[in-house]
Structures are given as structure tokens and as C-alpha cells.
């Protein structure tokens, strides 16, 4: 090769490397396994059964399954059973779009349940809206999700409320004044939650001493944590997903940071303490429900869930999946028709539905207004601390 060959080959490598990196961020298409049982009313489900937030999808689907099996055991809706069509989006927003397209075009579903992660719900919602198929997100809390259009609903609270709830808890119950914030920049949920937390916390007289960010998949958070430690906060708000929070907590402790961490419902996973070990002891996060609640509706759900899934205790995502499916079935019954437009209208009129995660009323923005609970991690278990009303 001629003079300057090194430069040429390195440039080539750089460009190819970047193309390849972009490609690898969106792994090649793979057909999701369709879990199909014979039945009459096709309902679509798209969730993350694999990938970085796999437990979100698994838990939610168990809740949906339980609700569907109960309904079908009681004879279904007007004698017609519900058949679930489930697609795996592998924790990837792009995959979520193709999963929903498949459900609508191939499986001809009349309504869609999903996703947990706001980024994925935001990616798929426009497709449901265009096709005029009602979509109910069980647990996407970013406010923009239901703003996509009038066919998009959710059965959980939204981040302006969740952020406010954690901020109130920090300022009024924990009585702390100085908080550091560590956000996942690639995650709509995390960025939104951090924003609302900061707004309320500063209004309540608190101070955000330092703000840092990371991106999902980073192995090392020490540089951000070192800067946070320097600012000497009384708590660190980490509105990320369980997959990184454990590592963050561990590395924080290794750097001598002893203050508690605070988080949102993205922490809710049995894998959280697996990654964290003892590093999260004494930390708090907000959630949609506590299985320790004495409410008979909750106790009945926990009992049925344990019976169905080998004694597993349902997490909040399972409860929300259950509620989302129940609300959909209720709307189909009230609509008296399988026409998506009529189901949509019935969904919009949902009022005081006795859900496991609280009484659910769908408001004009198609959101649910519900209380949040604060849980503390103690002995690697999630313990109920308090409830914060909207």
C-alpha cells in the first residue's frame, strides 16, 4: 500500500466501526415467539420478556395471564374467550414498534396491552394511534405517553406525581435538604422523573447539590459518584432501572458514600438486590402498591397469584398488568362490541374501578389518578413505609 495507507485504513475502520456500532444498538430482527391459544377475542401484548429489563415483562405478563385465565374460567366476555397474543420486544424501542405492527396487522388484535418502559411505549403508541387500536400501558409513567393520542391509556400514576411523591417524602418525612441526582440520559422515564423530582424538591426548600448522568449499560459509575460525594449530599436520587441501580449502589459504597439512595418504580424487580448485595439497605423508592397492604382486594390478588405461580409474591408490575387487563375486559364488556372505537370510548369512561393498585378512574388525559407508596429495602426485602396521596 502507498504512503498514507495507515491513515486510510484507520479512517475506514472508524467509519465502519461507527456504522457497526449503530447496527449493534439495534440488533437484527428476530421473530418473537407468539404465545397463542385458540380463542375468540384477540388481545395483543408487547413486553420485554428478554433483554436488560426482562423481569418487567415477565412480571407484567404473569399479571395479565392471571386476569385472562380468571375471565376465561368464568366464561369470557358474552361467552367468547380472550386469546392473548404476546410479542417480545427484547427491551428495545425499535423492536417494540415492530412487535406492535405485527400484533395489529398479522394477529388483528382489537386492543394492545404494553409496555412497562416509557421509551418503548412512546415508540409503539403512534402505531396504535394510527391504526385506531386502543393501547393500555400498565406502568409507563412518563406523561408524554398518553399525549400521543386519544387511543392511548394507562392505569398507573404519572411521573409529575411520582417525582413529587418522592420529593415530598425526602423533604417532609426524611427531612433532608441536600440531594444529588444521577440520571440515565438515554431513558425518557429517568429524565422525566428527575425533572419533576427537582421541581418539587426545590419548591419544598431543598437543594439539588449536584446533577450527574450515565447511560444504560455503563460498567463504571465511579467518576460520577466521586463528584457526587464531593458535593456531600444527604441522599442520592437515582431514577433509573434496577439493572444499573445495583451496580451504582455498590460502587457508591465502595467510594465511602453512606447516604441512602432514592428511586422510583423502575427499581421494582427481584433482581435489584441481586445486583446490589447489601449496598441498598436502608434506601427508599416509590412504587404503585405494596403486597403487604391489608386491603382485601390486594390480599385476594396476592393469594391467587401465589397459587398460580408457585408461591411467587407479585411485584407492582404484576399488579399493574393484572389491573390493565381487567380494565380492558371491563371496557369490552361495557362496550358490548369488539369494535376498537367503541372499546376506546368505554375505556375513557372507566370510573372507580376497584383495582389491586387502588381505585382507578381514567381522567380526561387518559391517565389514572392513584396514590403512590414508598418502600424501604430492609434485609433485602421491600418493606412498606408510607402512602402518598395525589
Amino acid at each position, binding site marked *: 500500500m502507498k504512503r498514507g495507507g495507515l491513515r486510510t485504513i484507520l479512517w475506514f475502520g472508524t467509519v465502519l*466501526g461507527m456504522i457497526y456500532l449503530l447496527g449493534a444498538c439495534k440488533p437484527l430482527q428476530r421473530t418473537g415467539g407468539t404465545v397463542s391459544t385458540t380463542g375468540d377475542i384477540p388481545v395483543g401484548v408487547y413486553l420485554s420478556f428478554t433483554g436488560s429489563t426482562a423481569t418487567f415483562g415477565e412480571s407484567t405478563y404473569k399479571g395479565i395471564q392471571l386476569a385472562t385465565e380468571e375471565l376465561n374460567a368464568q366464561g369470557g366476555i358474552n361467552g367468547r374467550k380472550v386469546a392473548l397474543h404476546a410479542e417480545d420486544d427484547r427491551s428495545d424501542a425499535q423492536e417494540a414498534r415492530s412487535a406492535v405492527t405485527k400484533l395489529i396487522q398479522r394477529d388483528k388484535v382489537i386492543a394492545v396491552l404494553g409496555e412497562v418502559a416509557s421509551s418503548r411505549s412512546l415508540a409503539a403508541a403512534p402505531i396504535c394511534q394510527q391504526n385506531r387500536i386502543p393501547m393500555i400501558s400498565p406502568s409507563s409513567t412518563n406523561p408524554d405517553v398518553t399525549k400521543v393520542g386519544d387511543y392511548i391509556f394507562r392505569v398507573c400514576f404519572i411521573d409529575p406525581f411520582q417525582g413529587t411523591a418522592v420529593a415530598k417524602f425526602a423533604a417532609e418525612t426524611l427531612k433532608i435538604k441536600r440531594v444529588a441526582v444521577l440520571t440515565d440520559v438515554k431513558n425518557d422515564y429517568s429524565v422525566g422523573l428527575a425533572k419533576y423530582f427537582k421541581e418539587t424538591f426545590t419548591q419544598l426548600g431543598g437543594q439539588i447539590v449536584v446533577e450527574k448522568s450515565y447511560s444504560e449499560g455503563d460498567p463504571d459509575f465511579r467518576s460520577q459518584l466521586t463528584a457526587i460525594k464531593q458535593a456531600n449530599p444527604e441522599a442520592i436520587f437515582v431514577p433509573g432501572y434496577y439493572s444499573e441501580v445495583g451496580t451504582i449502589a455498590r460502587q457508591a459504597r465502595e467510594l465511602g458514600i453512606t447516604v441512602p439512595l432514592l428511586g422510583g418504580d423502575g427499581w421494582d424487580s427481584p433482581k435489584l438486590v441481586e445486583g446490589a448485595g447489601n449496598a441498598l439497605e436502608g434506601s427508599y423508592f416509590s412504587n404503585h402498591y405494596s403486597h403487604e397492604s391489608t386491603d382485601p382486594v390486594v390480599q385476594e390478588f396476592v393469594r391467587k397469584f401465589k397459587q398460580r405461580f408457585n408461591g411467587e409474591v407479585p411485584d407492582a408490575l404484576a399488579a399493574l398488568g393484572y389491573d390493565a387487563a381487567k380494565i380492558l375486559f371491563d371496557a369490552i364488556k361495557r362496550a358490548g362490541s369488539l369494535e376498537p372505537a367503541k372499546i376506546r370510548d368505554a375505556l375513557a369512561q372507566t370510573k372507580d374501578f376497584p383495582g389491586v393498585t387502588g381505585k382507578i378512574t381514567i381522567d380526561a388525559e387518559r391517565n389514572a389518578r392513584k396514590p403512590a407508596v414508598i418502600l424501604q429495602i430492609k434485609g433485602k426485602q421491600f418493606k412498606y413505609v408510607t402512602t402518598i396521596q395525589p
Partner: protein
Amino acid sequence: MEAFLQQLINGIQYGSIYALIAVGYTMVYGVLRLINFAHGDVYMLGAFVAYYIIVGLQIDKHPSVGNFVFVLLMCMLVCAVVGMLIERLAYRPIRHAPRLTALITAIGVSLLLENGGIVVFGADPKYIPTIIEPAQAGESGLFVSVGQMIMLVVSLVFMVILRFIVMNTRFGRAMRAIAYDMDAARLMGIHVDRVIALTFALGSALAGAAGMMVATFTSVKITPLFGLLPGVKAFVAAVLGGIGNIPGAVLGGLLMGVIEAFVGGSALTTYRDAIAFLILILVLLLRPSGILGKAVTEKV
């Protein structure tokens, strides 16, 4: 000052991992003029081998120095074999093809390992159970965890050993001879294929060691795409130090780690991952031969 030193320690520690991976890139480039994009995925394999051995044999319940050395050596062995297989099956058949062919093949091998990893290991993240509980520390001072210390020391030991192998053994001399002129080396009776295979084995073993240590001591989540970003960053480190130059790769790796630590701790924290590419572009524009690389005209 304290924060400065702490960031420096963080950076050097993580940089030593980049250095271990970068050395593999640079050695392969040295002998074959090939950028082995699959190298980051060998690092990923090292992490998975560590996971399966530790969880399978329940080593997390019986931590001891001997057990760690055993896991480390197993990871290195498996990765060395995989590295040699990659060379034998993917690169050797096209050794005399144009360079672009080899480069594209390397990307293919990388995609194969990543997506094959998704099939074999599954896409859900795995965690190696916490082995060393973080020590409860006091109010001030610098913090270096036991895991960080181990990573740094082991990396340095490997680099010294590598330096010895390359400079003081027959194999090392053969490797350098091939890097200088492959055809002349063959004429001198050097078994070129064998030396190239061993070069892959050596580089892959170091990447495997890096993967094992990161997975074991930082309790990070392990996924089949685990090697992607570290691999690319290590490649940038190798270019920064001067690709083909082993001390350059070490220097580039350490610099890369330190720069990232300071960017991560500064107000520009969001751009932490972007900085690697900025460095790459700057190096290519200003000094494509890297810091320690010689700006030589390439041989024919």
C-alpha cells in the same frame, strides 16, 4: 484535590482494563494489519465464562485467592482457544485478500459472537453475586476498593509479563519479525501461521482476563453486548497510543480511562461515551500514527 486524586485513581483503574484489551488490538494489527473488531466480544466471553464458573461451582460462597486464580486462568484459557479458532476459521482463509475484506470479516465475526451470545446465553442480564462486600469507609480520604486494587495489580502484572514475552522470548522475536516483514520472516524459517495463531491466543487471553475481572469485581450486569463499547473504546485507545505499538496501547488505555473519569465527573458528564470518538477523530486528523507510533511510510 481529593476529588482530583480520586478521579485519577478511578481513571487509572478503568484505564488498565482498556489497556489490557487495547494490547490485543494492537498486537493483531502489528502482525496482520487487521483491526480485529471481534476482540471486544472475546472480552464479553471472558465475563460469561467467569459467570458460569463462579455460579456453577458456587465460588462466590467460598472465595479464596486460589479460586480466583483458577477462574482467571480458565477464562484466559477459554478465550485463548476462541481467539485461535477465530483466527483459524475466519481470518486465515482470507489472509491474502484485500484488507477491506478482512475488516468486514472481522465485523461479521463480531456480530456472530454477539448474536450467538444472545442465543446461547440469553439476552437477559446476568450478575455475578457480590463476592467482596464493600468495606464501610470513614468520612474522608481516598477510596480504592479491594476489587479495584486487584484489577489494577493484575493488569500491571500481565503487562510486565507481556513485555517480557515480546522482548525476550523466541516467540516474541518471531512476532516482531513478522510485524516487520511477513515474507522475509517466512524466508528466515519462522513458522508464520503458528506465531500468528499464538498472537491471537495471547491477545484473547488478556481480553478474557479483563472481562473476568470487570465482571467479578464490579458486579456489573453481563449481557452479550457487554463487550461492544469497551471494545470500541479500547480500539480508540490503541489508535491513540499508536496502533501496532504495545507500550502505546498501554499508554492509550490509561489515558482513555483517565480522560473518561474526568469527563464523567465534570459538568460534561453526558458526553462521557462521546469523548472516545472525539479523541479518535482528533487523533486521525492530527496525528494518525498516535502518540508513540512512528510516522513511517508503510511497506509495500
